[in-house]
Every structure is written in C-alpha cells, then in structure tokens.
C-alpha cells in the first residue's frame, strides 16, 4: 500500500519552513499520544505500586530469604514444592478456605438477595431498614469480631445463655475445632450481608417495571416472575456480587485472626492467615510470598471461570 500513496518526495534544495499543519501528528497518533499522556501518571503509579512489587514478589518466592542473613540463596521452585509436599498446614489452610468460600458465598448471596427482595417490596421505613442492614458493613472487621467473641464465650456468652434457656447445652464455639470455623463464618456473613443487600437492591430497582407488568398480563405468578424476570435481569448484578464475595472470602483474614487466630488445631486457619503467620510470625518471607502467588493464581482462575459461566449476552 505504501508504494501507491502519493506522499510528496522531498524536493532538492532547502526544505520549506514547516507550517503548523505539517507539525500536527496524524490523527490516530495524536489520539494515542493524548490517551497515553493522560494515562502516564496512573501507569507510573501502577508500575511503582503494583508491577514492581509483583516482580519483587516473584524474586522473593525463588529465594530462601532471611532478612537477617547476609545472603539469600536462590532455591528455584523449592518454596512452591515445599508448600505442597512438606507443609501440611498449607494444604489444610487451602481446605479451610475452600470450605469457607463454598459455604459462606452462597449463604451470603441467598440471604442478601432475600433481604433485598423484602426491602424492595416495602415502602415505609425502607431507608431505616437499609441502614440497619448496612451498618455492620461499615464497621471494621476487627470491631465486628470483638463484638462477637464475647457472644460466643462458653462461660458468659449470651449465645449459650439463650441455648440454656431453651434447654439446649451450649459449647465452646470458638474453642471447639468442630464449630470454630462456622462461628467465624457466621460473623462474616452477618457483617458482609449489608453490602450485598445494597448492591442487589440497586439491581432490583434498575429493572424496568414494564417487564413485571407484561408478565402479570401473561398470568405469571410471584414465583414465576421471580424466576423468569427478576433472576435473569439480575444476572449482571449476580456476576458482580458473586465475584467480589468469592474473592473476599478466599482472602479471609481479619476475623479469623481476631476471633480464633486459626485455632483450635488449625481448624479455622485460612490461607491468608497461614501466609501472614509464616511471613510476620516466622519471618519466612520467601516461602510466604510463594504461597501468596499460589493463592493469587487460584483466585484468578476461579474469578475467570465465574465470569465465563455467569457472563451475560444481552442488554435491556
């Protein structure tokens, strides 16, 4: 193509003085320069605060890094193989995290959707209820955990007190390996519910009422309208809520750290807690970084799969 263009060949002799028009870049290049110019600051921030740390993390994961030692020997993939072959606590933490996400994500979504549907149908005091459900979400995870620890107390906690009143025997909710994880999970769901309720409520309110009117004219009942109108039209909201909630629970840390510190018998030790303990308790930074990268890959794969399965192919 270039051979057929009519680009003027430079004439012999002195070049003509450049005109303002000649100085202009071709349109596409100008647009790109404009875009990159505006993006430059954010790209620089991304490089400094994301890209460089990732590169350092990869470097760390390939070394036996001891902050105090003068040298950090290169050990290749040893940290990665160690996680799967010599550290049963890591495999345990993966299982705990998996269990946590598999139970807490659907529980959170079902409950928050139910609450959002209820709030969507009431007109009086809706703002008050919305605030009540959202309040735990704005509390810090540490504060929320500290509220729940005394509730679970086997001696003086009101959960056992209520059970006793009902003639049931209480237990050490956080001290028993059979209940510790579930107890923390309940706190998580309680605290995180409000955020998803607000998102679902926004999704529900964005659905045009015409769809419901048409469905009603066609004779669709409440269940049918929910199944054939609400659920499909909430699909984009579902993708958002599902991905964010899953990623959040796969990274669960604060509440288990405050409420159980991963115990008893590592029954509530999530991956991030295990990584934290190895990094800042045992100062095995190389190994902790390798585990972080493994977790990152797991989350990436799960998020991609979720987005692929739940992707929406329509607009309204």
């Amino acid at each position: 193509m270039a051979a057929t263009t009519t680009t003027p060949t430079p004439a012999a002799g002195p070049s003509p003085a450049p005109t303002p028009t000649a100085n202009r870049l071709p349109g596409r290049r100008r647009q790109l320069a404009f875009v990159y110019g505006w993006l430059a600051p954010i790209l620089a921030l991304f490089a400094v605060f994301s890209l460089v740390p990732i590169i350092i993390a990869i470097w760390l994961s390939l070394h036996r890094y001891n902050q105090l030692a003068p040298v950090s020997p290169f050990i290749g993939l040893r940290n990665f193989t160690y996680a799967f072959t010599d550290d049963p606590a890591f495999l345990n933490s993966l299982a705990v995290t998996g269990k946590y996400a598999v139970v807490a994500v659907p529980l959170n979504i079902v409950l928050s959707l139910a609450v959002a549907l209820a709030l969507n149908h009431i007109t009086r005091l809706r703002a008050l209820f919305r605030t009540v459900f959202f309040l735990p979400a704005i509390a810090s995870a540490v504060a929320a955990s500290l509220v729940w620890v005394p509730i679970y107390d086997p001696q003086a906690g009101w959960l056992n007190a209520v059970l006793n009143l009902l003639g049931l025997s209480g237990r050490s909710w956080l001290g028993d390996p059979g209940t510790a994880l579930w107890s923390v999970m309940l706190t998580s769901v309680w605290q995180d519910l409000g955020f998803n309720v607000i998102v679902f409520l926004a999704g529900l309110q964005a659905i045009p009422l015409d769809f419901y009117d048409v469905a009603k004219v066609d004779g669709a009942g409440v269940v049918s309208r929910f199944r054939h109108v609400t659920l499909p039209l909430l699909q984009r909201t579902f993708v958002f809520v599902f991905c964010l909630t899953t990623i959040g629970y796969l990274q669960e840390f604060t509440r288990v750290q405050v409420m159980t510190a991963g115990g008893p018998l590592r029954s509530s030790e999530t991956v991030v807690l295990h990584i934290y303990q190895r990094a800042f308790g045992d100062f095995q930074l190389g190994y902790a970084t390798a585990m972080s990268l493994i977790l990152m890959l797991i989350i990436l794969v799960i998020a991609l799969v979720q987005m692929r399965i739940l992707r929406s192919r329509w607009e309204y």
Partner: protein
Amino acid sequence: MPLSRRSFLGRSAAGLSAVAAGSVLAGCSSGATTEGTVVSKPVDGKLNVTWWSHNNPSFVTANTTMIRRFEAENPGIHIVYQYFPYDVLARKLQAAYRARNVADIQQMFGTWVTEYAVNQLLDEVPSELSGSEPTSRFWPAAVGAYTHKGKLYGVPHEYNLENGGILYNPKLAEQAGIKEPPSTWADLVEAGERLTKIDSKGRADQVGYAFTGNDSITFTFLSMILQLGGDFWDSDGVHVDFHSPQARKAWVDETELVTRHKVDNTTWYTGDPYTMFFRGRAAMAHQGPWVVASGRADFPKFTDLAYVAEPPYAGDTLKFAAESGWGEVVNARADPKVREAAWKFVGFMARPDNARIWNLTSATVPALKELQNDSQMLAKAPYLKVPFGVLPNGRWVGRVHDRDQFWTFVHDAFVSVELHRQDPVAAIADAEKQINLMIDEKIGP
C-alpha cells in the same frame, strides 16, 4: 486464645501506654516529648546513644528510671529512647537491621537474640561485663539465648521462668476442706479434682487447676521430662526427641490431667488461666511469677491470692526449662565511641543496685545471681520468695528456632488428645515430627 507473657506485654501495653507516657515525661528530664513513641531526642554537645524497647508501661518506667540515673552519673552521654508495641518492635528490628538503621542499643527478648548473634549483627559483650564465664554472673537459663559459640552477645535483665509457682486461692481451698497448698504432685492432682465444679450441662463452674494456656502446657511438659531424668533434645542437640520413655510418660500424665482427672479443659473458657483465677473462677492456676504483679494491677479488688511453690512431679526438686527473657544488645555496626558508651549504660543497668530497681519496677525476676534472695527485693515483693527458691534448678530451653511454632505444635497435640482425636503417643509423635521439620527448614540445606 491462651495468653503468653510475651503477648500479654503487647496487649497490656496498648491499653496503658498513656499511663506510661506520663511517667516517662516525669522521668526523662532532657528533651522529653510526647511526639509518637519518642521520649527523648538527641542533645547537641553530648554523645547520643539511641535505645529501643517495647512499650509495656512497667518496663518503660523501669527503663526511664535507668536513663535518669545513668545520665546523672554520666553527664556527657545522652540516651535517646524510643519504645514500640511488642509486635512492632519484633518486626522493626528485623527490618531495621536489614536496612542498617537500627538503634545502638535494643531491649530484645532473649529468644530473639540468637538469630541476630548467629548473623553477626550484635557486638560481643566486653569481658569486664560478661565475667570469666557468662554463667558466673547470670543464671544459665537467663543467659542461654544470649550466647553463641561460647561468646556473650547481650546482657539479660530477667529470668523468664514460667514454672516454679502456682496461683492458689486459699478461700476456695478451705471451702473444699483443703487446709494446705499441695506439696506433692499427687496432692496437686487431688486438689485439682476436688476444686473442679462442673454443672449438670457439663460446663465448668469452677476450674480446679487451670494450666491449659499455651505456655503452661509446653513448659509443664518439658519440666516433667527433666524431672523424670530425661531430655527433650535429641542426641544431635538440634532436633527434639519426644520418643524417650520419660517424654512419653510425662506426656501421658499431663494429658490425663484433662482426660482422666478433669482438672481443666481448653474448651471450658476462652482467655488465659490466670484471668480465670483472678475472676475467682479457678482455684489454682499454673503461671510464672510475673502474673502476680499483673493480676494485682488488673484485678485490684481480688484479694484471695497466694503464690505457692509448684510441687515436683517426680523426685524432690522441680527441674524445669526456661526461655531467656528481656535484656540489652548492642548493634555491632554502631560507631566505636557510641558502642563503648552503650556498653557503659548496659553495664550500669546490670549493676546490682540498678538491676534491683529495674526488676522491682518491671515486676521481673532478676537474671543476676547476686540478687537471689535479696532482702530488699523480698521486702517489696514477697511473692518472689517462691521463684527465688527454684532458680538454680532451671536450665535454658535451648535453641527452639521458631518459638511460636514449637509451642503451637505441642499445644495442638495436647488439644488433639483432649478431644480424643488422637491417642497421646500418636499426638506427641506428630508434634515431634512437625517441630523437627520446622527446625530443618530453618537450618536450610
């Protein structure tokens, strides 16, 4: 979560740091400021020596008292003092040594010291301070972690024992018809059984002998092995050996305290045994002497308190293992003149008259042999009589590498037996395997 003395330091410090700041301001005359955790700044015209410590209020008060006294004797030297929360200090030291911007002197927990000494980051203690042998001046248990290849790399302040004494509630004992504190292991177990009260739903209204805290489980176990004449270290001196007949017997007997005698249980309460005691919910509790002062401060209305000797489990002396506690180390890369001044200050603190003040103020047991049974200390802290009686029987626990993991593996094995998930022999074998794997990983190829 069971609370160790080390984590107690951090937690109590958070709540009481404001109190400390007040006492610090009163104690530190030159250039004192409330800015952050800096309590004094460099002074022009003086040789400034920087010092970091953790922020437990009683330790800060003791430290600032030492600064005031030292600067009065040495007007040309100024100690620039900063303190940090316990966890922050632990991490800050690692990062600061790596970045070569660490203080000239640091107050370190003994168990941390060995790692720094091995990596040649600490200055060797001058001979006039260390004595002919480190153990000539200091108790072996207190100085163990400060030594590496026969050389001393820091000066310990305290003998950090967790064994030796039991919190005892005479009122509850009398109500149960027990006239005297237990003097034998059999007495202890029997008293624990009689003093435990369980309601119809299987919950403990009163714990007989609270000992299932993270520290107590491990220290009791190690102590029982030593009293049976065994050792918990393998013949290589690096790995642990929990397969010996003594270790197995000790472990079975310890776990039977919860499975058979039911004097305590890790699921009966959250928190630590000593809190249960000071709330009047435990008749006896196994805890080191530090807890007496802390308990009195936290529960000032509680008066039914006696601190009695822990009866031997086997034989007639209570042998036990102890970690090395808090002490001072000096940065090997500090300026030579500053290092000299730093050691002068550390030596000043280790003088018996100053060490007495420091130990009394911080409610700790002295690392200096010279202060054993010190009459002035006993007059002000009579509860020290019990730990003073057992100090010669203690030995350094040894290089545990990762203290938290070591203790957690033993604690988890104990809970595993208590919940009937594993039999005692399998559980302790599992703990031994995990600890040795951890040590191998720490040592590296």
